[in-house]
């Protein structure tokens, strides 16, 4: 009798000690297409945002992380594994990983991160109240923010020249976006095409006297010959801005780049909302905001192009 009693007491104690922890712990599974500094930073951001909301990995949160190490078929296999494990939320970093998960489940909440165009990738039908089980954070280039940044730096900007290669589909999208954003913000876009790197200098020169500043989007052809744009800018005292922060050290006055840690942090906040009971279909897909960007400034380049940067602009730079 005694051993039996002891056993059942132990069983009771076990049940009481174990049950509450099991019930409280939420689980998040995170899949990433490849190890990459920006994507790793996003993952860290997700983790930190969750911790800030009381979901600490290893303590109050069960966290599974898998990387497909660059292989699409493995990403699909990871998606299968996660769907089988039924975590409370699946976080998918980058487009292929997100698509692999979305193809597998319409029940488990999915939060994507660092996906450029979630609508074209068919992850969600629309950005506002996407419905279904999927929402997330996009890293589509915020061209409108870039244009306002140029105005903040130079002041009194009306016409902005854009140099790009019309053969790059990606650039065409950015330029179309720039035109519609500019129309809303009250600027005029002047296009200059450069089909080859060798044409970039001529394209930049064609803008002299016609515009108040030059903006170079993330166009591979033009960025590879970025120095020629800078030289024209210095000679004609025409300020040059870039769409990527790497070009700042090559002579652009400033650029707004994604801070992928912050992109991940925003993603983590969305995950926390879902863990607390919100429906993913009711949460809008988030696009870049100033909070997700970091401003990089090159004061020397500004001097060479005859621009005096306002104090408040410099204060925003990192």
């Amino acid at each position, binding site marked *: 009798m005694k051993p039996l009693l002891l056993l059942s007491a132990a069983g009771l104690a076990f049940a009481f000690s174990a049950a509450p922890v099991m019930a409280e712990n939420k689980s998040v599974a995170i899949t990433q297409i490849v190890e990459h500094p920006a994507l790793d930073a996003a993952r860290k951001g997700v983790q930190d945002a969750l911790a800030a909301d009381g979901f600490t990995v290893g303590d109050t949160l069960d966290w599974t992380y898998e990387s497909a190490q660059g292989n699409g078929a493995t990403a699909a296999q990871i998606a299968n594994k996660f769907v089988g494990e039924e975590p409370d939320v699946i976080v998918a970093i980058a487009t*292929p990983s997100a698509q692999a998960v979305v193809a597998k489940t319409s029940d488990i909440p999915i939060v994507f991160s660092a996906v450029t165009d979630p609508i074209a990738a*068919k992850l969600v039908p629309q950005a506002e109240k996407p419905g279904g089980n999927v929402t997330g954070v996009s890293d589509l280039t915020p061209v409108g923010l870039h244009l306002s940044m140029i105005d903040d730096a130079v002041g009194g900007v009306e016409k902005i020249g854009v140099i790009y290669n019309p053969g790059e589909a990606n650039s065409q999208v950015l330029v179309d976006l720039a035109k519609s954003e500019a129309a809303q913000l009250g600027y005029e876009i002047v296009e200059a095409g450069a089909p080859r790197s060798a044409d970039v200098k001529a394209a930049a020169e064609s803008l002299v006297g016609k515009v108040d500043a030059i903006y170079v989007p993330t166009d591979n052809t033009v960025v590879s010959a970025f120095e020629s744009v800078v030289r024209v800018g210095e000679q004609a005292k025409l300020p040059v801005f870039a769409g990527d922060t790497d070009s700042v050290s090559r002579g652009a006055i400033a650029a707004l780049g994604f801070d992928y840690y912050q992109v991940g942090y925003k993603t983590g906040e969305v995950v926390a909302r879902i863990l607390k009971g919100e429906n993913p279909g009711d949460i809008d897909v988030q696009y870049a905001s100033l909070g997700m960007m970091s401003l990089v400034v090159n004061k020397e380049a500004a001097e060479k192009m005859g621009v005096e940067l306002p104090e408040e602009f410099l204060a925003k730079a990192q």
Partner: protein
Amino acid sequence: MDGSFPLGAAVTAALITSGVDPWISMLAAMIAGAAAGAVTAFLNVRLGILHLLASILTMIALYSINLRVMGAPNVALFSEATALTPLEALPLPAFQSKPLAFLVAIAVIAIGLNWFLRTETGLAMRAIGANPRMARAQGARVGLLIGMGMALSNALVALGGSLFAQSQGFADVTLGVGTIVVGLAAVIVGEAILPPKRIWIALLACIIGSIIYRFAIQLALSADWLGLEAQDLNLATAILIVLAMSAPSVRAKLGARRRGPAR
């Protein structure tokens, strides 16, 4: 292969999104794959470029071609009807119906290959693979048969890519990364476990080998309790395959030792 797999996916995705029937898209994907294989064979046979370099050249060229075919690095297929859509009418969940459908597809292809490789043409093709000089001496048309073999194999790889795109709902230009490695590993693992004495056993060995390879990845993914982390995935997969392949020989050696030296 690293090029033909995403090529099949790209052609299928591009055609299905522009409203072409999924079955015709699959056929088109296979034709595109066959063309890619024929180009590799042409580079090798007619232009005398070393076979490895010829396939590398085709592979890197296909990266650009795949981008052109899709018009973007990534095309999604979630809302389009695919060849797999009719499966949803079956009273089975997707995780059962899709593997069943693929099992049927694989069986049909394996039976077809088994038949083809035993015809005169198929036999000549196998002879070239085993010993090109001997085959030439026997009067086999080496160049033509290499072309046919390359076209056939790449058409099948493209079909694989096409089915991947339809079952996973997207095609991505990076899809092919490592396909050749997986393919080679599957063949070698399969042949180690099932020594191919007849052609149908060799085909079966390939199928079993590729399933074992996927199992190894799955085990590696689930090996968190060993203290393995996400970045260890490829290493863990490699070690598991080493274990799987060395198990029979280790067992044989242990058995031999227990029985004592034969001499």
